[in-house]
């Protein structure tokens, strides 16, 4: 984020600078009790024969007033605390600079395997899910200024995180992706969901879908056409980090390789993406430089100031009121310790 803490957006849920609410408004009627210290002081009076003989003393008068005010504050803040004061949820507009990136992460069962294509046998042997998680964390740490969303998928898409600039949330969403996945690979619907994250948002910077997967599935023509239209409509770039398993033919057919019957799904998908007519790049993850290239490519993307609206949760202020009340009461207790009960 480059600039933060812009005043709340007018309208849009924000209610000006002070938006305090109470849970039990009827308790506020007890605020009248705060007048009590002015009507009657709880301390025992020391009787004196004639007040006129006690010299007028500014310090004493200030002290008397202070004690009453302190008592009133103690009661008032206690009442306010009891009534459950809170600051309502606020929307805060933040301005970030960067791209809107939706990570589409493969969580299918095949991600549990190592690059060599078998389940990890030796402790510490990294499977593909862990590799993907590590790669993505690395990527995010290098590019913290972007806005990220996240969709996971196996047989069906899993909605994980809407577009947000909270890097902690994104990291937290990616870390568990190192756990075991299950199910098959279904590419089309998560892409649709990822595109759906852009729905209704203004174009405020480059939009990127970062697909991380180890396999592919064929996209039928009907869905493929819809995806194509949507990619164009939302003007989204596509990056595909392909986690290649050993023995996989790769996304680009080697020269002279024989086309298997029905085609290699990765290659078909690659061809389909190429044919979308949008900016598209594929990276192969077993190449260590690939990630660096991906990051570098991101840097070249257009950077528009990105307005994001952050929703702040409501915040309980009762605690502070209790603390204030306690402090005031402690002051009164100290005063009580110094109280002269009888004049002798």
């Amino acid at each position, binding site marked *: 984020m480059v600039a933060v803490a812009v005043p709340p957006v007018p309208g849009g849920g924000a209610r000006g600078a002070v938006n305090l609410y109470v849970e039990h408004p009827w308790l506020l009627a007890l605020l009248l009790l705060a007048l009590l210290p002015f009507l009657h002081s709880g301390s025992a009076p*020391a009787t*004196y024969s*004639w007040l006129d*003989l*006690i*010299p007028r003393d500014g*310090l004493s008068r200030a002290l008397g007033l202070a004690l009453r005010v302190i008592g009133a504050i103690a009661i008032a803040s206690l009442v306010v605390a009891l009534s459950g004061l809170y600051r309502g949820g606020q929307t805060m507009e933040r301005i970030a600079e960067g791209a809107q990136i939706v990570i589409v992460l493969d969580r299918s069962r095949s991600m549990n395997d190592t690059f060599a294509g078998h389940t990890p046998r030796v402790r510490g042997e990294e499977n593909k899910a862990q590799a993907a998680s590590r790669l993505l964390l690395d990527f995010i740490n290098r590019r913290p200024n972007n806005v990220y969303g996240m969709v996971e998928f196996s047989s069906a898409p899993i909605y994980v995180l809407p577009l947000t600039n909270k890097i902690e949330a994104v990291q937290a969403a990616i870390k568990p992706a190192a756990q075991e996945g299950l199910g098959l690979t279904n590419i089309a619907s998560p892409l649709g969901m990822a595109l759906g994250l852009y729905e209704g948002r203004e174009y405020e910077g480059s939009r990127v879908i970062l697909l991380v997967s180890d396999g592919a599935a064929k996209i039928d023509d009907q869905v493929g056409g819809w995806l194509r239209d949507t990619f164009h409509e939302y003007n989204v770039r596509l990056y595909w980090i392909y986690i290649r398993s050993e023995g996989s033919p790769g996304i680009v057919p080697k020269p002279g390789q024989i086309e298997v019957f029905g085609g290699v799904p990765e290659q078909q998908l690659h061809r389909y993406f190429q044919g979308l007519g949008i900016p598209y790049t594929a990276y192969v993850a077993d190449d260590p430089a690939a990630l660096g290239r991906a990051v570098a490519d991101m840097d070249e993307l257009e950077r528009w100031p990105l307005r994001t609206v952050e929703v702040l949760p409501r915040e309980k202020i009762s605690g502070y009121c209790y603390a204030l009340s306690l402090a005031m009461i402690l002051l009164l207790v100290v005063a009580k310790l110094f109280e*002269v009960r009888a004049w002798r």
Partner: protein
Amino acid sequence: MTAQGAEVREFHYRVGWRTRHALPGHHKSSLTGAGHEYAISAPLLDYPDPRRLDIRRSVRDPFGQLFVRTYNQHGILPVYAVVDLTASMGFQGTASKQALLVEFLSILAFSASRTGDPFGFVGCTGEVLPQFVVPATRSGAALRKAIDRLSDYTPAVCGAQGLIEAAPLLGYRRSLVFVISDFHFSLDVTHRLLNAFARHDVVPIVVWDSAEFRNPPTFGIARVRDSETGAERYVLLRPALRNRLCESFEQRRIALERIFMESGHKPYFLLDRIDCDALNRFFIER
């Protein structure tokens, strides 16, 4: 009338004027009678008492008239105490003002009875309290009873008007009047009080307590309530305030002394305890 078993406590009051009371007593009187204070030699025809024939005067008289010596008899002096029973006299500091008051009345009553003078007192608040009006009497029992009742009384009322209203109850004859009060009311009221008792010989007994000014609580926060008006004020007690309090009382003392001395009454400041020797000294110096 004295404290049980304690030493006999009394003091000797005296006045600088002659009483006009007909009954013989202890104090100098301006009435002629059976006394030993020579007054004047008068013709025997006017005072037919040949026992006191003034031979020297008779011999010197060119007309040969016989003269007799006449003497002033000593008479009794009615003593009154006008007692302030307002709430401020309920102050308890080093001593209880009320206990002090009762003690003083006992001593005074005893002293009066020893001197042979009738003693009476009037208890006052904002008005004269009828149950505490005892006309001058030499009946010790009646006085004791009344003083006992006084010790059960709780001062609660405010005002000083009663002290002024008590004046007509003391009769027209000049008496010795102890006005026992803390004089915690305005100087104006004090002035009117002294005017009301102008006929009498007033001894203002100013009952103060050293806790009121000299030895207040050393340090602390006090919510002070005025015993009479009920007004309340916070006071942060500290040495600086104590000094100002002493100063305030000193000024008050000077002001009271001035207003008393203007009408020729020397006040006695009764502080914490009754010292009969000091009272004797006070009356000798008076």
